[in-house]
């Protein structure tokens, strides 16, 4: 069935592209939002991700749709952050991060804001893998395809990323 979708995409079947859009747009938006923390910036990048996806499918072989979308998204975010570094983390949160000299939160105060800040403070790959695995519920195989690693190496990276974010909450 997966092959059927890829075949339809290669044939330019709009219903197959619509399915990809419906299945992935919200996930890609969440993924981008965690990195740019700005709704309008996230919308712009997401929109561009899907336009580039169309061109990619037109000109290249497609094997893993989700991996391609996430790869495009990661590249666009990197391009964007190069152009405009201050947008990578929203001004408001940057202030909060500066205020908290060390990102140590007491267990009872773990809330969405502190978790978001802790995620923002992780290095890019660690944040990406946590968002992809725990928030976007991607399989390890798909994540491995995005990073171009083996599943074993991806699992190790996820474990390290979780260890890193936990260090922000020493009371746990």
């Amino acid at each position, binding site marked *: 069935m997966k092959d059927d979708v890829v075949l339809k995409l290669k044939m*330019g079947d709009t219903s197959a592209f*619509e399915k990809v859009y419906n299945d992935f747009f*919200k996930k890609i938006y969440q993924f981008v939002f965690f990195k740019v923390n700005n709704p309008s910036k996230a919308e712009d990048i997401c929109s561009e991700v899907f336009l580039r996806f169309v061109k990619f499918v037109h000109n290249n072989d497609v094997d893993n749709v989700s991996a391609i979308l996430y790869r495009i998204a990661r590249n666009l975010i990197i391009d964007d952050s190069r152009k405009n570094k201050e947008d990578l983390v929203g001004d408001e949160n940057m202030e909060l991060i500066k205020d908290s000299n060390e990102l140590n939160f007491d267990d009872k105060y773990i809330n*969405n804001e502190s978790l978001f800040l802790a995620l923002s403070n992780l290095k890019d790959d660690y944040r990406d893998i946590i968002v992809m695995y*725990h928030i976007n519920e991607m399989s390890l195989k798909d994540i491995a395809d995005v990073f171009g690693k083996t599943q074993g190496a991806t699992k190790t990276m996820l474990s390290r990323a979780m260890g890193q974010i936990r260090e922000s909450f020493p009371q*746990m």
Partner: protein
Amino acid sequence: MNEKEFISKIKSLKSDIIINDSFFDSNKEKFLNCVSSEFNKKEVNIKSSNVAGFISLINRFKIPGFAFGASAFVFVTFGLTVSAALRSLPGDPLYSFKISMENTRVAMAFDDEKSVNLQVEFAGNRIDELSMVLKSDKANKNKLATDLVNKIDTDLSAMPNRVVALNKNKKSLESTAKGFDNKINEYSAKLKNASNVASDAGMGDLTKDIDLAYIKGNSVSVKTLNIVIQNIDSSINNDVLKKDIIDRVEKKVDNIKNVVDSTAKSVANNDGNDIINQSPVIDDGENKNINTNINTNGGGSTLAEQLQDMKEELQKAKIGLASADMASVINNVDKSLNNTIISTTPIAPIIPTTTVITPVNTNNTGEKDKKDDVKMQFESGVGYGLIHNDYEIESLWSNGE
């Protein structure tokens, strides 16, 4: 906080990130336009590269050019025709070619499972076409959309019988029913969108038809899942499969509940008259109003309550997973949903009529007469959906009426 709680905290972050629905829709349109323009370019590229390829072959093998010219023309023309047909909509000249291609693919499927999967996929094509027709500026789009909804309805209704045909192979039966169920979740979202578009365009009857197709799709999925659970090998511990099926059935009841709730709200907003939350009434021919408690095990008197009862029953079944009553719970839900479809039809106000709708006397009336009575009520629009409990709704399904 342990690892599990911490992870669930992380997962909860996604609820904070909400995408703007209007952006989602407008960007989808932009995206699909980009697909069309990008792949139209591709067709031109194929054409030019093919021509170049043929010219080089002619030069290489010194074969008469006209023969290759003719072949190339046929090849490119056929390719372009297929490509255009795949994107055609009802009313377009190539649409019948598209349907013929689909029928050919079904006929040439290697096995029954592949054939059923293709039919499910093609039912999805009709739903996609419905969305596109509604967004199009075709003059007769109301009729085209109504025809499509009828086709969707018929295709989905035929599914249980097709799944039964796979009964010889339990694995195949299970995977097909689950695959169909997954598709129904996807199709439900599309039908909901189509219903919203029709409703915004003031196509009241079409909106009702789409909502009914939505409910029928979900109900048919329960029916196919029921076939799986009836065929579970009791000598093997299948608790995981049973739980999965109950979860799926629960989701279908939720889907129906959502559409019933939203319709009730819209009716209440428009007319100040919340039909769904009223007990349906029937004119029994003696100008007496009779409450029709649709046959559910919970015995609730409104649709919303009855659906809630079904959900609670499913949850109880999940808790008592080892119980042998599992199959009968799903069976009850299946039958209740069949009745729900009938009783959901009067989303439009129930207008007391002077026409007598005679409840069927199961002792004296033949099967054919019963079906004709039901059909008559549907077709005439009289007593829209007011089916007496004695009707055997089962016969409606099996005959695809």
